[in-house]
């Protein structure tokens, strides 16, 4: 789909937020889905980049991407200015389950992993059942916290260098929250794989269902290249991240249980 850049906002050193308007309504976006973004029109870089959808309007008239510059593709995207065209395919993937029972749903995010929860917040999917626990290495990298607090969603933060909120890892913040407030009915997570692994063992210990948004290198994004596989837990078979995910129950995939 052809899109136009509405805004490119620098959030912190190496992090930016693209606000994007599809030229035609795409409709039916679910929080936790992703798009495949073509970077420029040349053959370098060749492949599209899978990017998780951040904020979005349910009618598909607008969505955002929270991007960290990690290589040539993301660096080129960081140069986009309002009015530029962007070639996007999607949305793809399953997204977070929107119809969960339970009164307490915690989203546990690290760094840019806050992105998919912006869509949940913007569209008020879980009302006052929802809470965000966000970790980063330092206060400057606690991204988009006001997006949540502006919408009345409680936000609890941690920083590894103690510059803001709880000093330590976000998984320790989760432990602390469980001790003081009791455990949630379900948790969602998105962030670095090491963080999500640590959280999976916390979830396991407390018997809390955990839905994790995972990623992998992808060539197509819609189940054809079979490049983005992850091994199933206790089974010598694979899931494709693009079709079966990107959101998985933590108990289903080996990568969160090793």
């Amino acid at each position, binding site marked *: 789909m052809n899109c136009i850049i509405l805004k490119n906002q620098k959030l912190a050193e190496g992090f930016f937020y693209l606000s994007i308007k599809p030229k035609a309504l795409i409709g039916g976006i679910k929080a936790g889905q992703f798009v495949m973004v073509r970077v420029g029109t040349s053959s370098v870089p*060749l492949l*599209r980049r899978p990017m998780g959808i951040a904020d979005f309007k349910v009618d598909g008239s607008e969505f955002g991407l929270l991007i960290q510059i990690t290589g040539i593709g993301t660096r080129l995207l960081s140069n986009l200015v309002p009015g530029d065209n962007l070639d996007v395919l999607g949305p793809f993937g399953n997204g977070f389950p929107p119809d969960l029972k339970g009164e307490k749903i915690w989203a546990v995010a690290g760094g840019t992993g806050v992105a998919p929860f912006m869509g949940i917040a913007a569209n008020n999917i879980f009302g006052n059942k929802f809470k965000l626990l966000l970790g980063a290495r330092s206060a400057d990298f606690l991204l988009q916290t006001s997006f949540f607090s502006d919408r009345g969603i409680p936000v609890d933060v941690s920083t590894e260098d103690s510059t803001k909120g709880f000093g330590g890892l976000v998984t320790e913040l989760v432990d602390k929250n469980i001790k003081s407030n009791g455990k949630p009915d379900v948790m969602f997570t998105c962030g670095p794989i090491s963080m999500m692994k640590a959280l999976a063992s916390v979830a396991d210990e407390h018997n809390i269902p955990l839905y994790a948004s995972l990623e992998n*290198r*992808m060539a*197509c994004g*819609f189940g054809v*290249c079979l490049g983005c596989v*992850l091994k199933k837990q206790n089974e010598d078979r*694979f899931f494709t991240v693009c079709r079966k995910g990107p959101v998985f129950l933590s108990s289903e995939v080996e990568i969160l249980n090793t």
Partner: protein
Amino acid sequence: MNTPNISVNLAGINLRNPIIAASGTFGYGLAFQNFLDLGNIGGFVTKGISLKPRVGNPDPRICETPSGMLNSIGLHNVGLEKFITSKMPEIRKVDTSVIVNFFGETVEEYVELANRLDQVEGIDGLEMNISCPNVNKGGSSFGTDLSVTCNVVNLCRKATKKPLIVKLSPNVGDIVEFAKACEDNGADAISAINTLVGMAIDIKSRKPLLAKRTGGLSGPAIKPIAVRMVNECYRSVKIPIIGIGGIATVQDIIEFTLAGATAIQIGTMNFVDPAICEKLAAELAPLLNELGVDNLHDLIGQVS
């Protein structure tokens, strides 16, 4: 001005245009119906089918390289039975030419697959992938051993009356010997080329970027090699050649045609633009007009 003729006859398969989607980049065709009308492309080649389902290689399986990508998917596929019972009924509804790619781990498996697929209605042609490991030869590829290639093509030829296409490996000293071997043993056409073996390394972890260390290089990076090999084959064999390797534009299609290709396949670029086969099909007749050519067929092998 007349509309130029872009239809081609490929070893008895009538294609409305020379643009075929390549095996391994188009699934079983059905997933692309969200992006294009399969009725507007020449045809597609299915994901390679084996006798039994295969789960494929460990992750990571792909990585990007300059103007290309490496893959070691490991021939992950649903297997013959499921292909016939659950994919073919849907594929039969599609108005395009269907070529089924197949491979075995032994010569016997190839022959059994050719036999079984020969009986399946709705398949217009078979493409043998001979670039896979031969378990009886220590895992070396069928398609890099000349006598093995001769034998397996010969036996599959006897097992099917459908048009039989052999997809050649470029990872050999002289691809022409293999093209001739296919022709001499009854192949109706050859596809050239499959991916080139490559490797990429993460300089921080010092690990290969693919779990299986090496993988097949594809994409625009390999196009000049593919054009050269198609031309070498064209000068040595009479059977039609399907040109494959990094095709991304309609100009690339003409280049492969001039080198000697009767039809072409588009691979990696299906990932970048899933509608590319249809788009290039629409651009082909206008380009022929511009070049003053009435019939695409007149350009085959016409490089001076």
